[in-house]
């Protein structure tokens, strides 16, 4: 079998601003046969997107392809001139980006953007291209295939836009498609639909593809072969089934272990402590915008939600994006005052906004945000960031503060040498640990974790979860854990609240997750990809439910 793509000894280097060169890709070989989907999998920074980009002869600014060949259909993309490369891009090789929302021009109608490639390369008459686009929309099971092209990008949902991006890539009949984490930004229920659409279109057109992802379960559904990357080198490669069943390399095994949650049954706390509530939320309603005449804000994001967290226990809140889970967290922390209902913490009613709470109340209830990038002040060193709550809440002098900072760094398992670094000089996982250490510095009783693992790779996220569990045992903490990642919530929580459109629809325990009662919970849980490669093909979802709960 001849290969469509042959990458040999590929090396990519980057130059830092002090003139130092760093090898990003260190001699990678890769073959893709016609009609084959190869998945590149690895943590962020492993070079998976860089390799995928070299297929178009492209290296990001500051990077350079310094060696090796990238032969696509017999043509070496590295050796081509920029003009010849441009002729190939979009026509022979097409790209589906991670964030379709950022890839579409908001000021141009979707149809014009989808057929733009055809216009540039002149591969077919525009009328024919329009007809083909409509056929693709239909094949990708988009609603209203005739009319959707007349809309603007903001008028369709995220999942639809992602499928439209795929249509844009397919319009000129490319031989090779590059998928760059195309479903990472989507909700699980939407992801199912998008994956199905991709899969059917790929097999119908017999297109070869490279699928970049860090989610093994997603890759298992769509790829024929998996290549595991780390630090710019291939660690392991093989057929999907083999990799999943018999992973040889320790890193692959680590990846696999991170996907399957290992939730040891948590010891049930007996006696009166279990019953004692630390946090009680009573029928809280939160909204945005100016108040209307009936006392409700213009947009109500959370409606009548009540929940209860016992001392030293964990509560998970799950739901799709837009269901109000982060808004609820902000209301609990006092960032966004609720317009109805109240929050009782440690037996006392909390003020609705942070300003009306006492310093001690603020200290005992900490919140950790999803994006460590924006949650850490880029102008301060790790030492400053961790030292401030110590001075502010505990009035520590320089010496004990310094000792405590060392202690905190040890707790979150960061080397003490990082003290003088700024957030920009830390990796994503390290930043999230600093972010968490800052909350710990306050000696809180409850930490609200708002999607703290969603921006991280599976392996790093699993390590953070383990850390959280360990700290809980040592420090008698309680967590409110907000996530759209069900396996994470399952791994750490004693109780799980399912939210949908601003309402709490069900509260279940991890043990009961196998048999949820509410149809939405059933749908949500059945949409989580499993490592089994046949999962997607065998997945049967009640179309009535899908219609009722998904805005695809």
């Amino acid at each position, binding site marked *: 079998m001849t290969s469509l793509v042959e990458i040999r000894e590929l090396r990519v280097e980057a130059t*830092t*601003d*002090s*003139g*130092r*060169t760093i090898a990003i890709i260190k001699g990678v070989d890769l073959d893709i046969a016609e009609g084959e989907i190869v998945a590149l999998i690895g943590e962020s920074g492993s070079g998976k997107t860089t390799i995928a980009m070299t297929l178009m002869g492209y290296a990001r600014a500051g990077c350079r392809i310094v060696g090796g060949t990238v032969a696509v259909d017999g043509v070496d993309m590295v050796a081509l001139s920029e003009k010849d490369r441009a002729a190939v891009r979009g026509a022979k090789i097409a790209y589906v980006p991670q964030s379709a929302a950022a890839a579409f021009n908001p000021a141009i109608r979707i149809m014009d953007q989808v057929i733009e490639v055809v216009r540039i390369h002149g591969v077919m008459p525009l009328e024919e291209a329009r007809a083909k686009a409509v056929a693709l929309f239909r094949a990708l099971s988009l609603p209203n295939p005739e009319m959707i092209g007349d809309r603007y990008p903001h008028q369709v949902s995220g999942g639809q836009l992602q499928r439209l991006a795929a249509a844009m890539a397919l319009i000129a009949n490319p031989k090779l498609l590059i998928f760059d984490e195309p479903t990472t930004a989507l909700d699980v229920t939407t992801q199912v639909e998008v994956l199905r659409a991709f899969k059917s279109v790929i097999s119908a057109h017999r297109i070869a593809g490279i699928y970049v992802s860090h989610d093994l379960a997603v890759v298992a559904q769509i790829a024929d072969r998996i290549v595991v990357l780390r630090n710019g080198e291939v660690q392991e490669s093989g057929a999907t089934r083999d990799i999943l069943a018999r992973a040889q390399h320790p890193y692959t095994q680590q990846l696999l272990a991170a996907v399957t949650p290992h939730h040891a049954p948590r010891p049930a706390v007996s006696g009166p402590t279990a019953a004692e509530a630390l946090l009680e939320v009573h029928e809280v309603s939160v909204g945005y915008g100016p108040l209307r005449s009936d006392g409700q804000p213009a947009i109500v994001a959370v409606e009548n939600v009540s929940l209860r967290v016992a001392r030293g226990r964990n509560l998970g809140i799950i739901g799709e994006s837009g269901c109000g889970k982060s808004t609820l967290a902000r209301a609990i*922390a*006092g*960032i966004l005052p609720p317009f109805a209902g109240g929050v009782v913490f440690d037996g006392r009613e909390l003020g609705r906004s*942070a300003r009306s*709470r006492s*310093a001690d109340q*603020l200290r005992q209830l900490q*919140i950790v*945000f999803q*994006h460590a990038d*924006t*949650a*850490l*002040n*880029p*102008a*301060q060193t790790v030492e400053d960031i961790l030292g*401030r*709550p110590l001075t*502010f*809440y505990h009035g520590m002098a320089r010496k004990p503060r310094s000792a405590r900072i060392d202690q905190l760094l040890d707790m979150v398992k960061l080397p003490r040498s990082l003290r003088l*670094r700024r957030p*920009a*000089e830390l990796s994503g996982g390290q930043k999230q640990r600093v972010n968490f250490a*800052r909350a710990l510095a*306050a000696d809180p009783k409850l930490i609200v974790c708002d999607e703290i693992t969603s921006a991280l790779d599976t392996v790093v996220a699993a390590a953070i979860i383990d850390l959280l569990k360990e700290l809980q045992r040592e420090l008698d903490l309680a967590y409110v854990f907000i996530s759209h990642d069900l396996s994470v919530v399952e791994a750490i929580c004693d109780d799980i609240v399912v939210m949908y459109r601003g309402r709490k629809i069900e509260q279940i325990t991890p043990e009961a997750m196998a048999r949820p009662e509410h149809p939405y919970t059933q749908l949500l849980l059945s949409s989580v990809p499993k490592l089994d490669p046949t999962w997607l093909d065998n997945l049967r979802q009640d179309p009535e439910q899908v219609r009722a709960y998904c805005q695809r």
Partner: protein
Amino acid sequence: MTSVAKSAPRHQRFGYRINAVGVAGALVVGFWIVVALAAPAIVPHPIGDIVDTDYFGPISRELWLGSDYLGRDMTSRILMGARYTLGISIASVIIAGVSGVMLGMIAAITGGVVDMVLSRFLDALNSIPSKLFSLVVVAAVGSSIPVLIVTMAVIYIPGAFRFARALAVNINTMDFVVVARIRGESLFYLIRAEILPNIIGPVLVDLGLRFVFIVLLLSGLSFLGLGVKPPYADWGALVRENIGGLPYAAPAVIVPSLAIASLTIAVNLLIDNLPTKIRDRENS
């Protein structure tokens, strides 16, 4: 990594990358600052003395930059003029910058009514044409150096305010500011530790630009005869008093113009090419 470290450029030790154009700008600016500071000690003639028998004299061995419309030494007048031009402009830009940026950050953090009142008030101030405003003020209270400084500071406060507020509003929505807020931090701490360090770079660049505008406005006012009072003169006043020499291509009118141009261009080059910090951290 040793071989790499050896081949790296020399200035890497400082952790900053320096640009040749920026260095040139800095040298010119530095030169004028030194001149302004040392002017009384280095002027060849007292600036009021008539030393030449001719007016609009050419460049000669005794009078390096010729003489002005009364036969006074141009070199001395330029050197002393640097004092007024630089001194008044720097004082104004500092007053305008500090108050504008402070107000901008307060408006951004506090929001609500405070933001509304401050923004609308300074917008109103901004809507008055700057030259007209200074003309009226100088006509009303008379021209003196403190009046000039305050007038020009007031003119440039709204711009500094708008700029700082726009930057601070962006930073203010970041999660780390929210974290500081729900920690219960004071307004002063938020300004000092969370907002200011993250906007200081662009703010300084903006102040550099504003400094250039102030130099030009001061020169313009002096040209209209509303600036520094004779016999002292800043560069704008020198251009005005010697404007009669233009038909003779007298150095007395060309040199002060060149001085203004060199200072403003150099400041612009400097702020466009400030040293950038090297973010790369070697694995040491």
